[in-house]
């Protein structure tokens, strides 16, 4: 089959989102079912792409319009993009199931469009091979995210969305100025060609441009000090959307950051940027963990935990070593899985019991035992207990950090993990050892999803090799820039 059909990953969510206005009158159930079917189709295509990339070992280069890069825009679906596009599609599918329970606020047709376009935006950010196209997809992701954050139409939601919009707007303009500087200095927007020419850029220009791009992306990637919007937005957004934010929207941001960072690794002042990022990432972890400790709302607490874990991924990517990048990708996979589980569990509790305050979790073990089990396994894994998946990726990240000579950062991050253990165990304690209650009926599809995710978490925890080898391939895709340049069939324009 022609590999150009991988462009359906973009075309399907787009055309189906445009179709939604036409089925407005069909009612809530029909529209939610429609979204479920579309995400299933998307997952099917993503699986095919994943198979194709991992069996041939070669990336798929989609050339829009048939123009060879850098004249046209290309999508670069290498091992990393193939893996994460699949994760995006699968998570969206699972959350499309959750939509039936969790989203009751009107207008559902608009929600469906935004839902599909959020999936599209993240897919595009991960797949694109052109730095300006990355900006376009970032805008798509960000603006859908603003709208979805405010979707519940409460006061908090509006405030969170406005905060997000202001920070996101500043971030995108920084990013755009950075892209303009890079374009001014190299004369091209194609990522592979930028990497090729990066060594010739004036080091000051490169430093300024890269710092601007990183600050711009740090808003989406939730790095300190630009992540103040994140807990509010996570708390206010509809539950399935929160899970999507944590599972792949922030991942797309941090991937873009890492990709551009490594593409520019030939720049003379590159090490300075790494130091900046390491400081930002370490602070992200520490500040988020201590903020999480004080939260009474479990959804908000897990939001802080998500921010801190993403900080950990940022730290891994900022090390500038192969081991660090591999570990970071591994953590990205694991984190996506557990945060879907946690936000699904917590969101379901909030839907059933009318809120995500810690009070509602007392006695959850007796009232909704299977959901409680899901939240517990997610918590245990998030803390990094052996036999669960995050243990391995945290271990890898800390080893890589020490290896790269940043023992202080490793020590601080480990210290922060202790804080994380405190608040997660407090939650687990509240669930199983306090409170009383009648047993409620739990929804079968949601329980099935939770059990599936628990099984994956434990499977990776016991047998991490398969996931680790995937992460190594995907990490190599980011780290090995020379191979990246070779894979893109650049046309001999200029250069």
């Amino acid at each position, binding site marked *: 089959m022609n590999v150009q059909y991988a462009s359906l990953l973009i075309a399907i969510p787009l055309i189906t*989102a445009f179709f939604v206005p036409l089925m407005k009158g069909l009612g809530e159930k029909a529209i939610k079912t429609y979204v479920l079917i579309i995400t299933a189709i998307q997952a099917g295509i993503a699986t095919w792409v994943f198979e194709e990339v991992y069996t041939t070992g070669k990336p798929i280069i989609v050339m*829009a319009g048939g123009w060879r890069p850098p004249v046209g825009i290309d999508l670069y679906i290498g091992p990393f993009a193939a893996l994460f596009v699949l994760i995006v599609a699968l998570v969206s599918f699972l959350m499309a199931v959750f939509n039936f329970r969790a989203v009751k606020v009107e207008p559902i047709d608009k929600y469906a469009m935004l839902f599909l*376009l959020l999936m*599209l935006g993240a897919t595009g950010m991960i797949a694109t091979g052109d730095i300006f196209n990355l900006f376009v997809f970032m805008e798509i992701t960000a603006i859908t995210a603003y709208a979805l954050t405010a979707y519940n139409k409460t006061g908090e939601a509006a405030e969170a969305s406005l905060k997000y919009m202001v920070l996101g707007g500043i971030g995108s303009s920084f990013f755009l100025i950075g892209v303009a500087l890079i374009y001014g200095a190299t004369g091209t927007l194609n990522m592979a060609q930028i990497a090729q020419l990066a060594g010739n850029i004036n080091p000051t220009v490169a430093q300024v441009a890269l710092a601007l791009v990183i600050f711009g992306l740090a808003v989406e990637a939730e790095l300190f000090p630009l992540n103040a919007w994140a807990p509010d937005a996570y708390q206010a957004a509809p539950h399935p959307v929160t899970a999507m934010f944590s599972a792949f929207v922030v991942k797309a941001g941090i991937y873009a950051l890492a990709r551009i960072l490594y593409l520019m690794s030939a720049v003379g002042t590159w090490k300075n940027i790494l130091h900046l990022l390491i400081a930002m990432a370490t602070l992200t972890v520490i500040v988020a963990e201590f903020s999480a400790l004080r939260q009474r709302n479990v959804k908000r607490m897990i939001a802080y935990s998500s921010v801190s874990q993403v900080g950990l991924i940022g730290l891994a990517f900022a090390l500038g070593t192969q081991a660090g990048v591999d570990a970071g990708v591994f953590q990205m996979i694991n984190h996506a899985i557990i945060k879907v589980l946690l936000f699904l569990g917590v969101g379901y509790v909030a839907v059933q019991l009318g809120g995500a305050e810690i009070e509602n979790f007392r006695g959850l073990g007796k009232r909704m035992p299977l959901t409680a089990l899901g939240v517990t396994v997610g918590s245990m894994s998030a803390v990094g207990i052996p036999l669960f998946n995050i243990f391995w990726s945290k271990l890898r990240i800390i080893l890589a950090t020490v290896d790269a000579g940043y023992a202080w950062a490793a020590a601080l991050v480990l210290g922060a993990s202790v804080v994380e253990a405190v608040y997660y165990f407090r939650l687990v304690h509240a669930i199983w050892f306090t409170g009383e209650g009648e047993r409620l009926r739990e929804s079968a599809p949601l329980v099935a999803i939770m059990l599936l995710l628990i099984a994956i978490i434990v499977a990776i925890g016991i047998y991490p090799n398969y996931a680790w080898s995937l992460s190594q391939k995907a990490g190599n895709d980011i780290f090995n820039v020379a191979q990246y340049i070779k894979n893109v069939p650049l046309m001999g324009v200029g250069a």
Partner: protein
Amino acid sequence: MVSILKRSLAVIMLLIIGYWLAQGLSGIPFGQDKMLVGKYYLDNVIRQTGAINAVTAVVVNYRGFDTLGEVTVLFIASTGVGALLWAKRRERTAKTEGSIVLKTGIRLLTPFVILFGAYIFIHGHLTPGGGFPGGATIATAFLLLYMAYTMYEIPRRAFENTEGVAGMSYVIVALIGLAIGGYFLFDWIWQTWHFGVNNVGRILSGGFIPVIYTIIGIKVGTELSGIIDNMLREEVRE
């Protein structure tokens, strides 16, 4: 006192950032012939795309993927406004009807404004402009109607459907390219059919550019009108 300290701190920060940015900017060779791809576009644009407006050719053809994204961004903006301002029943609350001059003027002008908008997007491959400004011009016509008449409302349902259909048509044009030429957004009208090869510089040329710009023009027009409509109606509580 605190506010003065805070303010001076902010000013100092701004100065530092400004200096740093200026340093970066001064290192860029502006005005020199450095744009690698830009040269390529100028040399090949007519042969490869059939458009004499090189900017349009870059926007819709070479980098059409970005434009598809931008169209989506606008779609999201209008959907987002629709989602956030949603209410069971909403009505216009404007109180004063426009003056007779305004009303008469607008009644006469509206068709011409729409015609001009259509002119802009149909001639996108020949003259400056294209789907986005053309669509915006069309939306102005509806804005004028809202200004003049307190009771006027656009046919909302029809506009939303048109918007969706236009968006789908864009993707379908792109998918036809995938089916015929093997690439998403491939310009099949120009490169496979060679339609209008002897017509460069006239309206029936430029491959799929006028087709896409017409779609974009309709889409942007209905979309922006929809945003205006959403913002001008307020919730009515029973």
